[in-house]
Protein backbone atom coordinates (compact mmCIF):
# COMPACT_ATOMS: atom_id res chain seq x y z
CA UNK A 1 0.00 0.00 0.00
CA UNK A 2 2.94 2.28 -0.63
CA UNK A 3 3.77 4.69 -3.44
CA UNK A 4 1.78 7.51 -4.97
CA UNK A 5 -1.87 7.04 -5.93
CA UNK A 6 -2.30 5.59 -9.42
CA UNK A 7 -5.50 6.14 -11.42
CA UNK A 8 -7.76 3.09 -11.64
CA UNK A 9 -11.14 2.21 -13.11
CA UNK A 10 -14.15 0.69 -11.39
CA UNK A 11 -13.32 -2.65 -13.01
CA UNK A 12 -9.78 -2.39 -11.68
CA UNK A 13 -11.13 -1.83 -8.18
CA UNK A 14 -13.48 -4.80 -8.59
CA UNK A 15 -10.73 -7.10 -9.84
CA UNK A 16 -8.22 -6.06 -7.19
CA UNK A 17 -10.74 -6.37 -4.36
CA UNK A 18 -11.67 -9.84 -5.59
CA UNK A 19 -8.04 -10.90 -5.87
CA UNK A 20 -7.51 -9.91 -2.26
CA UNK A 21 -10.15 -12.46 -1.20
CA UNK A 22 -7.75 -15.25 -2.10
CA UNK A 23 -5.09 -16.37 0.36
CA UNK A 24 -1.76 -17.86 -0.55
CA UNK A 25 -1.83 -21.66 -0.75
CA UNK A 26 -5.57 -21.92 -1.24
CA UNK A 27 -7.04 -24.06 -3.98
CA UNK A 28 -9.31 -22.01 -6.23
CA UNK A 29 -11.81 -23.22 -8.85
CA UNK A 30 -11.78 -20.49 -11.46
CA UNK A 31 -14.38 -19.46 -14.00
CA UNK A 32 -13.29 -17.61 -17.13
CA UNK A 33 -13.53 -13.82 -17.44
CA UNK A 34 -13.23 -11.51 -14.44
CA UNK A 35 -12.76 -14.36 -11.92
CA UNK A 36 -9.83 -15.70 -13.92
CA UNK A 37 -8.27 -12.24 -14.10
CA UNK A 38 -8.67 -11.75 -10.35
CA UNK A 39 -7.27 -15.19 -9.51
CA UNK A 40 -4.28 -14.74 -11.78
CA UNK A 41 -3.71 -11.29 -10.32
CA UNK A 42 -3.62 -12.82 -6.85
CA UNK A 43 -1.00 -15.33 -8.06
CA UNK A 44 1.12 -12.44 -9.33
CA UNK A 45 0.82 -10.38 -6.16
CA UNK A 46 0.18 -11.67 -2.66
CA UNK A 47 -0.65 -15.34 -3.37
CA UNK A 48 2.09 -16.88 -5.54
CA UNK A 49 1.23 -20.40 -4.38
CA UNK A 50 -2.48 -20.13 -5.11
CA UNK A 51 -3.54 -23.35 -6.84
CA UNK A 52 -5.76 -22.73 -9.87
CA UNK A 53 -8.19 -25.41 -10.99
CA UNK A 54 -10.09 -24.91 -14.25
CA UNK A 55 -13.11 -27.01 -15.17
CA UNK A 56 -11.49 -28.11 -18.43
CA UNK A 57 -9.39 -30.41 -16.26
CA UNK A 58 -6.23 -28.48 -15.47
CA UNK A 59 -4.96 -28.78 -11.91
CA UNK A 60 -2.41 -26.25 -10.72
CA UNK A 61 -2.21 -24.15 -13.88
CA UNK A 62 0.33 -21.35 -13.75
CA UNK A 63 -0.55 -19.39 -16.90
CA UNK A 64 1.94 -16.80 -18.05
CA UNK A 65 -0.81 -14.98 -19.90
CA UNK A 66 -4.51 -14.55 -19.21
CA UNK A 67 -6.39 -17.50 -20.69
CA UNK A 68 -9.08 -16.46 -23.15
CA UNK A 69 -11.17 -19.53 -22.55
CA UNK A 70 -11.54 -22.33 -20.08
CA UNK A 71 -9.78 -24.67 -22.50
CA UNK A 72 -6.85 -22.44 -23.38
CA UNK A 73 -3.75 -24.46 -24.26
CA UNK A 74 -1.74 -22.31 -21.84
CA UNK A 75 -3.71 -23.83 -18.97
CA UNK A 76 -2.71 -27.36 -20.00
CA UNK A 77 0.89 -26.46 -20.77
CA UNK A 78 1.47 -24.96 -17.33
CA UNK A 79 -0.59 -27.40 -15.23
CA UNK A 80 0.71 -29.86 -12.66
CA UNK A 81 -1.74 -32.34 -14.14
CA UNK A 82 -4.34 -32.42 -16.90
CA UNK A 83 -7.25 -34.71 -16.17
CA UNK A 84 -10.59 -35.50 -17.75
CA UNK A 85 -13.63 -33.33 -17.18
CA UNK A 86 -15.53 -36.09 -15.35
CA UNK A 87 -12.54 -36.46 -13.03
CA UNK A 88 -12.28 -32.77 -12.23
CA UNK A 89 -15.92 -32.66 -11.18
CA UNK A 90 -16.11 -36.06 -9.46
CA UNK A 91 -12.72 -36.52 -7.78
CA UNK A 92 -11.70 -32.91 -7.13
CA UNK A 93 -14.72 -30.60 -6.87
CA UNK A 94 -17.48 -32.82 -5.49
CA UNK A 95 -15.70 -34.14 -2.37
CA UNK A 96 -14.94 -30.60 -1.19
CA UNK A 97 -11.21 -30.46 -1.92
CA UNK A 98 -11.45 -26.92 -3.32
CA UNK A 99 -11.20 -24.00 -0.95
CA UNK A 100 -12.70 -21.20 -3.01
CA UNK A 101 -15.07 -21.17 -5.95
CA UNK A 102 -14.87 -17.96 -7.92
CA UNK A 103 -18.09 -17.22 -9.81
CA UNK A 104 -19.76 -14.55 -11.89
CA UNK A 105 -23.28 -14.49 -13.31
CA UNK A 106 -25.92 -12.31 -14.91
CA UNK A 107 -27.99 -11.78 -11.77
CA UNK A 108 -27.35 -12.14 -8.06
CA UNK A 109 -30.12 -11.85 -5.51
CA UNK A 110 -30.59 -10.87 -1.89
CA UNK A 111 -29.61 -14.38 -0.75
CA UNK A 112 -26.66 -14.60 -3.12
CA UNK A 113 -28.33 -17.00 -5.51
CA UNK A 114 -26.93 -16.73 -9.04
CA UNK A 115 -28.73 -16.67 -12.37
CA UNK A 116 -26.74 -17.47 -15.48
CA UNK A 117 -29.54 -19.18 -17.37
CA UNK A 118 -32.34 -16.90 -18.52
CA UNK A 119 -33.84 -13.42 -18.09
CA UNK A 120 -37.62 -13.63 -18.04
CA UNK A 121 -39.62 -16.81 -18.28
CA UNK A 122 -37.71 -20.05 -18.90
CA UNK A 123 -40.13 -21.26 -21.57
CA UNK A 124 -40.38 -17.88 -23.33
CA UNK A 125 -37.22 -16.04 -22.36
CA UNK A 126 -36.51 -12.37 -22.82
CA UNK A 127 -32.81 -13.16 -22.93
CA UNK A 128 -31.47 -16.64 -23.20
CA UNK A 129 -28.09 -16.74 -21.38
CA UNK A 130 -25.40 -19.42 -21.87
CA UNK A 131 -26.53 -21.50 -18.91
CA UNK A 132 -25.21 -22.83 -15.65
CA UNK A 133 -22.08 -24.65 -16.83
CA UNK A 134 -20.03 -25.76 -13.86
CA UNK A 135 -21.45 -23.21 -11.45
CA UNK A 136 -24.19 -25.19 -9.64
CA UNK A 137 -21.74 -27.73 -8.25
CA UNK A 138 -18.98 -25.15 -7.72
CA UNK A 139 -21.44 -23.15 -5.61
CA UNK A 140 -22.48 -26.29 -3.74
CA UNK A 141 -19.14 -27.97 -3.08
CA UNK A 142 -16.37 -25.42 -2.63
CA UNK A 143 -15.56 -24.63 0.99
CA UNK A 144 -16.61 -21.08 0.21
CA UNK A 145 -17.64 -19.04 -2.81
CA UNK A 146 -16.64 -15.56 -3.94
CA UNK A 147 -19.00 -13.90 -6.39
CA UNK A 148 -17.76 -10.99 -8.49
CA UNK A 149 -20.03 -8.87 -10.66
CA UNK A 150 -20.43 -5.30 -11.81
CA UNK A 151 -23.22 -3.81 -9.73
CA UNK A 152 -26.40 -2.46 -11.31
CA UNK A 153 -30.00 -2.67 -10.10
CA UNK A 154 -30.73 -5.03 -13.02
CA UNK A 155 -27.95 -7.39 -12.01
CA UNK A 156 -28.57 -7.25 -8.24
CA UNK A 157 -32.19 -8.23 -7.82
CA UNK A 158 -34.56 -9.12 -5.01
CA UNK A 159 -35.10 -12.58 -6.48
CA UNK A 160 -33.25 -14.00 -9.50
CA UNK A 161 -35.41 -15.02 -12.46
CA UNK A 162 -33.82 -18.46 -12.36
CA UNK A 163 -31.69 -20.08 -9.67
CA UNK A 164 -28.79 -21.53 -11.65
CA UNK A 165 -26.55 -21.81 -8.60
CA UNK A 166 -27.65 -21.73 -5.00
CA UNK A 167 -26.26 -19.13 -2.64
CA UNK A 168 -28.44 -19.29 0.45
CA UNK A 169 -31.72 -20.24 -1.25
CA UNK A 170 -34.56 -18.57 0.61
CA UNK A 171 -32.38 -17.84 3.64
CA UNK A 172 -30.85 -19.37 6.75
CA UNK A 173 -30.86 -23.16 6.95
CA UNK A 174 -31.55 -23.75 3.28
CA UNK A 175 -28.04 -24.91 2.40
CA UNK A 176 -28.11 -27.43 5.23
CA UNK A 177 -31.59 -28.59 4.26
CA UNK A 178 -30.42 -29.08 0.68
CA UNK A 179 -27.30 -30.94 1.80
CA UNK A 180 -24.94 -28.42 0.23
CA UNK A 181 -21.61 -28.96 1.92
CA UNK A 182 -19.72 -25.74 1.36
CA UNK A 183 -20.32 -22.53 3.30
CA UNK A 184 -21.69 -20.76 0.22
CA UNK A 185 -20.97 -17.21 -1.00
CA UNK A 186 -19.16 -15.60 1.89
CA UNK A 187 -18.15 -12.58 -0.20
CA UNK A 188 -19.79 -10.72 -3.06
CA UNK A 189 -17.41 -8.26 -4.64
CA UNK A 190 -18.78 -5.53 -6.91
CA UNK A 191 -17.39 -2.35 -8.40
CA UNK A 192 -19.35 -0.48 -5.70
CA UNK A 193 -18.90 -2.47 -2.56
CA UNK A 194 -18.43 -5.74 -0.79
CA UNK A 195 -21.43 -7.63 0.55
CA UNK A 196 -21.36 -10.47 3.02
CA UNK A 197 -24.16 -12.69 4.33
CA UNK A 198 -25.69 -11.76 7.67
CA UNK A 199 -24.59 -14.61 9.96
CA UNK A 200 -28.17 -14.93 11.25
CA UNK A 201 -30.35 -14.52 8.18
CA UNK A 202 -27.88 -15.09 5.33
CA UNK A 203 -29.21 -11.95 3.65
CA UNK A 204 -26.45 -10.04 1.88
CA UNK A 205 -25.30 -6.90 3.71
CA UNK A 206 -23.04 -4.14 2.51
CA UNK A 207 -19.92 -4.35 4.65
CA UNK A 208 -17.37 -2.27 2.75
CA UNK A 209 -17.31 0.41 0.07
CA UNK A 210 -15.05 0.60 -2.91
CA UNK A 211 -12.88 3.72 -2.68
CA UNK A 212 -14.65 6.79 -4.09
CA UNK A 213 -18.11 5.23 -3.95
CA UNK A 214 -20.68 6.75 -1.61
CA UNK A 215 -22.92 4.63 0.56
CA UNK A 216 -25.99 6.09 -1.16
CA UNK A 217 -24.66 5.21 -4.60
CA UNK A 218 -23.78 1.70 -3.53
CA UNK A 219 -27.21 1.09 -2.00
CA UNK A 220 -28.93 2.63 -5.03
CA UNK A 221 -27.01 0.27 -7.33
CA UNK A 222 -28.78 -2.73 -5.78
CA UNK A 223 -32.26 -3.68 -6.97
CA UNK A 224 -33.51 -4.36 -3.46
CA UNK A 225 -33.29 -2.44 -0.20
CA UNK A 226 -29.71 -3.48 0.48
CA UNK A 227 -29.02 -3.64 4.19
CA UNK A 228 -25.90 -1.96 5.50
CA UNK A 229 -23.70 -3.36 8.26
CA UNK A 230 -23.18 -1.42 11.46
CA UNK A 231 -19.55 -0.95 10.60
CA UNK A 232 -18.75 -0.08 6.98
CA UNK A 233 -15.12 0.22 6.05
CA UNK A 234 -13.76 1.69 2.85
CA UNK A 235 -11.44 -0.59 0.92
CA UNK A 236 -7.82 0.38 0.46
CA UNK A 237 -7.47 1.51 -3.15
CA UNK A 238 -5.55 -0.74 -5.53
CA UNK A 239 -1.90 0.00 -4.96
CA UNK A 240 0.77 0.58 -7.58
CA UNK A 241 2.03 -2.99 -7.49
CA UNK A 242 -1.43 -4.44 -7.92
CA UNK A 243 -2.26 -2.15 -10.80
CA UNK A 244 1.07 -2.79 -12.49
CA UNK A 245 0.51 -6.54 -12.21
CA UNK A 246 -3.04 -6.15 -13.53
CA UNK A 247 -1.89 -4.09 -16.52
CA UNK A 248 0.81 -6.63 -17.28
CA UNK A 249 -1.77 -9.42 -17.17
CA UNK A 250 -4.21 -7.55 -19.38
CA UNK A 251 -1.43 -6.85 -21.86
CA UNK A 252 -0.97 -10.59 -22.37
CA UNK A 253 -4.46 -11.01 -23.79
CA UNK A 254 -4.39 -9.12 -27.07
CA UNK A 255 -1.08 -10.56 -28.19
CA UNK A 256 -1.89 -14.15 -29.26
CA UNK A 257 -4.85 -13.23 -31.47
CA UNK A 258 -3.66 -11.44 -34.57
CA UNK A 259 -6.62 -9.11 -35.00
CA UNK A 260 -8.57 -8.54 -31.86
CA UNK A 261 -11.53 -6.87 -33.65
Amino acid at each position, binding site marked *: MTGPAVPFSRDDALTVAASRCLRNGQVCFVGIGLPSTAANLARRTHAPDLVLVYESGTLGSKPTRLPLSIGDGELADTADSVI*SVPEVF*NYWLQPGRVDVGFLGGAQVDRFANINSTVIGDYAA*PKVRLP*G*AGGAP*EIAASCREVVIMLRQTPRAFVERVDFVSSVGFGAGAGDRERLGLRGAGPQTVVTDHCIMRPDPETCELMLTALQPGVSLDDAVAAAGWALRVADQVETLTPPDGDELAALRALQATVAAPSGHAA
Partner: protein
Amino acid sequence: MTNITTLAEAVAELVSDGDTIALEGFTHLIPVAAGHEIIRQHRRELTVVRMTPDVVYDQLIGAGCVAKMIFSWGGNPGVGSLHRFRDAVEHGWPRPLEIEEHSHAGMANRYAAGASGLPFAVLRGYRGTDLVAHTATIATVTCPFTGEELTAVPAINPDVSVIHAQQADRAGNVMMWGITGVQKEAVLAAHRALVTVEEIVDELHPRPGGVVLPSWALSHVAHVPGGAHPSYAQGYSTRDNAYYTAWDEISKDRDRFCEWIDTHVHAASAAGVGE
Protein backbone atom coordinates in the same frame (compact mmCIF):
# COMPACT_ATOMS: atom_id res chain seq x y z
CA MET B 1 -11.65 -52.40 -36.56
CA THR B 2 -11.64 -48.84 -37.78
CA ASN B 3 -12.41 -47.78 -41.25
CA ILE B 4 -10.20 -44.91 -42.41
CA THR B 5 -12.38 -42.97 -44.86
CA THR B 6 -13.02 -39.45 -46.09
CA LEU B 7 -15.02 -37.14 -43.89
CA ALA B 8 -17.86 -37.01 -46.41
CA GLU B 9 -18.09 -40.80 -46.55
CA ALA B 10 -17.91 -41.14 -42.78
CA VAL B 11 -20.69 -38.60 -42.16
CA ALA B 12 -22.84 -40.09 -44.91
CA GLU B 13 -22.47 -43.54 -43.45
CA LEU B 14 -22.81 -42.67 -39.76
CA VAL B 15 -25.24 -39.75 -39.41
CA SER B 16 -28.93 -40.00 -40.31
CA ASP B 17 -31.84 -37.60 -39.89
CA GLY B 18 -33.26 -37.81 -36.40
CA ASP B 19 -30.04 -39.10 -34.84
CA THR B 20 -28.71 -38.01 -31.48
CA ILE B 21 -25.19 -36.78 -32.10
CA ALA B 22 -22.45 -35.41 -29.88
CA LEU B 23 -19.62 -33.35 -31.35
CA GLU B 24 -17.54 -33.01 -28.22
CA GLY B 25 -14.57 -30.82 -27.45
CA PHE B 26 -13.71 -28.47 -24.64
CA THR B 27 -12.49 -25.30 -26.39
CA HIS B 28 -9.66 -27.52 -27.64
CA LEU B 29 -10.12 -30.10 -30.45
CA ILE B 30 -13.67 -29.20 -31.47
CA PRO B 31 -14.71 -31.22 -34.55
CA VAL B 32 -15.88 -28.21 -36.55
CA ALA B 33 -15.19 -29.63 -40.01
CA ALA B 34 -17.39 -32.61 -39.21
CA GLY B 35 -20.16 -30.24 -38.15
CA HIS B 36 -19.90 -28.42 -41.46
CA GLU B 37 -20.09 -31.70 -43.34
CA ILE B 38 -23.31 -32.52 -41.47
CA ILE B 39 -24.72 -29.15 -42.58
CA ARG B 40 -23.58 -29.81 -46.16
CA GLN B 41 -25.30 -33.18 -46.14
CA HIS B 42 -28.53 -31.46 -45.05
CA ARG B 43 -29.17 -33.62 -42.02
CA ARG B 44 -32.39 -32.69 -40.20
CA GLU B 45 -34.19 -33.30 -36.88
CA LEU B 46 -30.96 -33.96 -35.04
CA THR B 47 -30.69 -33.99 -31.29
CA VAL B 48 -27.30 -32.45 -30.58
CA VAL B 49 -25.50 -33.07 -27.33
CA ARG B 50 -22.55 -31.19 -25.90
CA MET B 51 -21.43 -29.79 -22.59
CA THR B 52 -20.26 -26.53 -24.17
CA PRO B 53 -22.04 -25.95 -27.47
CA ASP B 54 -20.28 -23.09 -29.18
CA VAL B 55 -19.95 -21.70 -32.68
CA VAL B 56 -20.29 -24.96 -34.62
CA TYR B 57 -23.53 -25.77 -32.79
CA ASP B 58 -24.71 -22.21 -33.46
CA GLN B 59 -24.10 -22.96 -37.13
CA LEU B 60 -25.91 -26.31 -37.03
CA ILE B 61 -28.86 -24.68 -35.27
CA GLY B 62 -28.99 -21.71 -37.65
CA ALA B 63 -28.75 -24.05 -40.63
CA GLY B 64 -31.89 -25.82 -39.44
CA CYS B 65 -30.32 -29.19 -38.69
CA VAL B 66 -31.30 -29.31 -35.04
CA ALA B 67 -34.58 -30.18 -33.29
CA LYS B 68 -33.22 -30.46 -29.78
CA MET B 69 -30.10 -29.57 -27.85
CA ILE B 70 -28.86 -31.25 -24.66
CA PHE B 71 -26.22 -29.09 -23.01
CA SER B 72 -24.88 -27.30 -19.96
CA TRP B 73 -23.29 -24.08 -21.27
CA GLY B 74 -24.07 -22.60 -24.67
CA GLY B 75 -22.01 -19.54 -25.49
CA ASN B 76 -19.25 -18.06 -27.58
CA PRO B 77 -16.31 -18.55 -25.20
CA GLY B 78 -14.64 -15.28 -24.31
CA VAL B 79 -17.04 -13.33 -26.54
CA GLY B 80 -20.65 -13.71 -25.40
CA SER B 81 -23.91 -15.13 -26.68
CA LEU B 82 -24.61 -17.61 -29.43
CA HIS B 83 -27.04 -15.56 -31.52
CA ARG B 84 -28.39 -18.42 -33.64
CA PHE B 85 -29.04 -20.44 -30.48
CA ARG B 86 -30.76 -17.44 -28.91
CA ASP B 87 -32.79 -16.75 -32.01
CA ALA B 88 -33.99 -20.36 -32.05
CA VAL B 89 -34.89 -20.35 -28.35
CA GLU B 90 -36.26 -16.81 -28.20
CA HIS B 91 -38.01 -16.62 -31.60
CA GLY B 92 -38.14 -20.14 -33.00
CA TRP B 93 -35.97 -19.32 -36.03
CA PRO B 94 -35.34 -21.15 -38.29
CA ARG B 95 -37.35 -23.63 -36.26
CA PRO B 96 -38.19 -24.05 -32.61
CA LEU B 97 -35.40 -25.60 -30.56
CA GLU B 98 -36.22 -27.94 -27.74
CA ILE B 99 -33.66 -27.78 -24.96
CA GLU B 100 -32.64 -30.18 -22.22
CA GLU B 101 -30.43 -28.31 -19.83
CA HIS B 102 -27.99 -29.68 -17.27
CA SER B 103 -24.91 -28.65 -15.35
CA HIS B 104 -21.37 -29.56 -16.42
CA ALA B 105 -21.09 -32.08 -13.59
CA GLY B 106 -24.36 -33.66 -14.66
CA MET B 107 -23.42 -33.84 -18.33
CA ALA B 108 -19.98 -35.26 -17.57
CA ASN B 109 -21.57 -37.94 -15.44
CA ARG B 110 -24.22 -38.67 -18.05
CA TYR B 111 -21.48 -39.40 -20.57
CA ALA B 112 -19.51 -41.42 -18.01
CA ALA B 113 -22.59 -43.54 -17.27
CA GLY B 114 -23.10 -44.01 -21.00
CA ALA B 115 -19.48 -45.09 -21.41
CA SER B 116 -19.89 -47.49 -18.49
CA GLY B 117 -22.96 -49.27 -19.79
CA LEU B 118 -25.04 -48.02 -16.86
CA PRO B 119 -28.48 -46.48 -17.23
CA PHE B 120 -27.78 -43.62 -14.82
CA ALA B 121 -25.16 -41.80 -12.78
CA VAL B 122 -25.22 -40.54 -9.21
CA LEU B 123 -23.85 -37.18 -8.15
CA ARG B 124 -24.18 -34.37 -5.66
CA GLY B 125 -25.70 -31.80 -7.92
CA TYR B 126 -28.57 -29.53 -8.90
CA ARG B 127 -29.99 -29.40 -5.37
CA GLY B 128 -31.90 -26.17 -4.87
CA THR B 129 -31.51 -24.99 -8.45
CA ASP B 130 -34.41 -24.26 -10.80
CA LEU B 131 -32.94 -26.75 -13.27
CA VAL B 132 -34.67 -29.47 -11.28
CA ALA B 133 -38.12 -28.09 -12.14
CA HIS B 134 -37.36 -27.51 -15.82
CA THR B 135 -35.36 -30.59 -16.78
CA ALA B 136 -37.16 -33.93 -16.76
CA THR B 137 -33.90 -35.87 -16.75
CA ILE B 138 -32.96 -34.95 -13.20
CA ALA B 139 -34.17 -37.31 -10.48
CA THR B 140 -33.20 -38.55 -7.06
CA VAL B 141 -31.89 -41.84 -5.78
CA THR B 142 -31.45 -43.01 -2.21
CA CYS B 143 -28.25 -44.58 -0.95
CA PRO B 144 -29.15 -48.12 0.16
CA PHE B 145 -26.49 -47.96 2.89
CA THR B 146 -26.87 -44.51 4.44
CA GLY B 147 -30.37 -43.48 3.37
CA GLU B 148 -28.97 -40.26 1.96
CA GLU B 149 -30.77 -38.82 -1.05
CA LEU B 150 -28.61 -37.98 -4.04
CA THR B 151 -29.17 -36.75 -7.56
CA ALA B 152 -29.47 -39.13 -10.49
CA VAL B 153 -29.12 -38.32 -14.18
CA PRO B 154 -29.68 -40.74 -17.06
CA ALA B 155 -26.86 -42.01 -19.23
CA ILE B 156 -26.27 -40.36 -22.58
CA ASN B 157 -25.68 -42.83 -25.39
CA PRO B 158 -25.49 -40.84 -28.62
CA ASP B 159 -26.14 -42.59 -31.89
CA VAL B 160 -22.95 -40.98 -33.11
CA SER B 161 -20.15 -39.18 -31.28
CA VAL B 162 -17.62 -37.17 -33.24
CA ILE B 163 -14.33 -35.87 -31.87
CA HIS B 164 -11.17 -34.37 -33.33
CA ALA B 165 -7.74 -35.69 -32.32
CA GLN B 166 -4.17 -34.98 -33.25
CA GLN B 167 -3.08 -38.35 -34.63
CA ALA B 168 -4.16 -41.75 -35.84
CA ASP B 169 -1.95 -44.61 -36.95
CA ARG B 170 -2.68 -46.59 -40.11
CA ALA B 171 -4.58 -49.21 -38.12
CA GLY B 172 -6.96 -46.51 -36.91
CA ASN B 173 -5.77 -46.18 -33.32
CA VAL B 174 -6.16 -42.58 -32.21
CA MET B 175 -4.18 -40.36 -29.83
CA MET B 176 -5.05 -36.91 -28.48
CA TRP B 177 -3.34 -34.82 -25.84
CA GLY B 178 -3.63 -31.48 -24.08
CA ILE B 179 -7.09 -30.72 -22.73
CA THR B 180 -9.09 -33.81 -23.65
CA GLY B 181 -12.29 -32.90 -21.82
CA VAL B 182 -15.03 -35.48 -21.94
CA GLN B 183 -14.14 -36.83 -25.37
CA LYS B 184 -13.16 -40.34 -24.32
CA GLU B 185 -16.45 -40.72 -22.50
CA ALA B 186 -18.42 -39.30 -25.44
CA VAL B 187 -16.83 -41.82 -27.80
CA LEU B 188 -17.27 -44.79 -25.50
CA ALA B 189 -20.90 -43.84 -24.76
CA ALA B 190 -21.84 -43.73 -28.44
CA HIS B 191 -23.19 -46.47 -30.66
CA ARG B 192 -20.95 -45.22 -33.48
CA ALA B 193 -17.90 -42.99 -33.26
CA LEU B 194 -16.03 -40.88 -35.80
CA VAL B 195 -12.66 -39.29 -35.12
CA THR B 196 -11.21 -36.65 -37.43
CA VAL B 197 -7.44 -36.27 -37.07
CA GLU B 198 -4.76 -33.77 -37.94
CA GLU B 199 -2.29 -36.38 -39.09
CA ILE B 200 -1.99 -40.05 -39.91
CA VAL B 201 1.31 -41.40 -38.63
CA ASP B 202 3.14 -44.70 -38.97
CA GLU B 203 3.28 -45.18 -35.24
CA LEU B 204 1.77 -43.49 -32.20
CA HIS B 205 4.41 -42.59 -29.64
CA PRO B 206 3.12 -42.32 -26.07
CA ARG B 207 3.01 -38.74 -24.81
CA PRO B 208 2.46 -37.09 -21.47
CA GLY B 209 -1.27 -36.56 -21.06
CA GLY B 210 -1.91 -38.63 -24.16
CA VAL B 211 -5.27 -40.39 -24.39
CA VAL B 212 -5.35 -43.36 -26.73
CA LEU B 213 -8.55 -44.75 -28.21
CA PRO B 214 -7.92 -48.14 -29.81
CA SER B 215 -9.30 -48.73 -33.28
CA TRP B 216 -11.70 -51.40 -32.03
CA ALA B 217 -13.57 -48.76 -30.01
CA LEU B 218 -14.15 -46.56 -33.08
CA SER B 219 -16.23 -46.79 -36.23
CA HIS B 220 -14.46 -44.40 -38.59
CA VAL B 221 -11.34 -42.25 -38.69
CA ALA B 222 -11.01 -39.42 -41.24
CA HIS B 223 -7.89 -37.44 -42.03
CA VAL B 224 -8.99 -33.79 -41.72
CA PRO B 225 -6.06 -31.47 -41.06
CA GLY B 226 -7.34 -28.23 -39.60
CA GLY B 227 -10.62 -29.96 -38.81
CA ALA B 228 -10.86 -28.20 -35.46
CA HIS B 229 -10.55 -24.66 -36.84
CA PRO B 230 -11.35 -22.11 -35.39
CA SER B 231 -10.60 -24.07 -32.24
CA TYR B 232 -7.14 -25.52 -32.00
CA ALA B 233 -5.22 -28.78 -31.95
CA GLN B 234 -2.36 -28.57 -29.49
CA GLY B 235 0.91 -29.13 -31.31
CA TYR B 236 -0.68 -28.40 -34.69
CA SER B 237 -2.52 -25.10 -34.56
CA THR B 238 -3.47 -22.19 -32.35
CA ARG B 239 -6.95 -20.93 -31.59
CA ASP B 240 -8.27 -18.41 -34.12
CA ASN B 241 -9.64 -15.97 -31.56
CA ALA B 242 -10.52 -13.46 -34.27
CA TYR B 243 -12.93 -15.95 -35.83
CA TYR B 244 -14.85 -16.22 -32.56
CA THR B 245 -14.96 -12.44 -32.25
CA ALA B 246 -16.06 -12.04 -35.85
CA TRP B 247 -18.76 -14.68 -35.39
CA ASP B 248 -20.55 -12.39 -32.97
CA GLU B 249 -21.32 -9.93 -35.78
CA ILE B 250 -21.91 -12.50 -38.51
CA SER B 251 -24.35 -14.48 -36.41
CA LYS B 252 -26.35 -11.52 -35.15
CA ASP B 253 -28.08 -11.09 -38.49
CA ARG B 254 -30.09 -13.89 -40.11
CA ASP B 255 -29.26 -12.86 -43.68
CA ARG B 256 -25.62 -12.43 -43.01
CA PHE B 257 -25.55 -15.79 -41.28
CA CYS B 258 -27.24 -17.50 -44.24
CA GLU B 259 -24.83 -15.92 -46.65
CA TRP B 260 -21.92 -17.06 -44.49
CA ILE B 261 -23.18 -20.65 -44.42
CA ASP B 262 -23.68 -20.63 -48.19
CA THR B 263 -20.20 -19.32 -48.81
CA HIS B 264 -18.18 -21.02 -46.12
CA VAL B 265 -19.98 -24.32 -45.73
CA HIS B 266 -22.16 -25.23 -48.68
CA ALA B 267 -19.84 -23.85 -51.36
CA ALA B 268 -16.81 -25.35 -49.62
CA SER B 269 -16.09 -29.04 -49.90
CA ALA B 270 -14.97 -31.30 -47.12
CA ALA B 271 -11.71 -31.69 -49.02
CA GLY B 272 -11.24 -27.95 -48.85
CA VAL B 273 -10.55 -28.24 -45.15
CA GLY B 274 -7.02 -29.18 -45.99
CA GLU B 275 -6.92 -32.84 -46.97
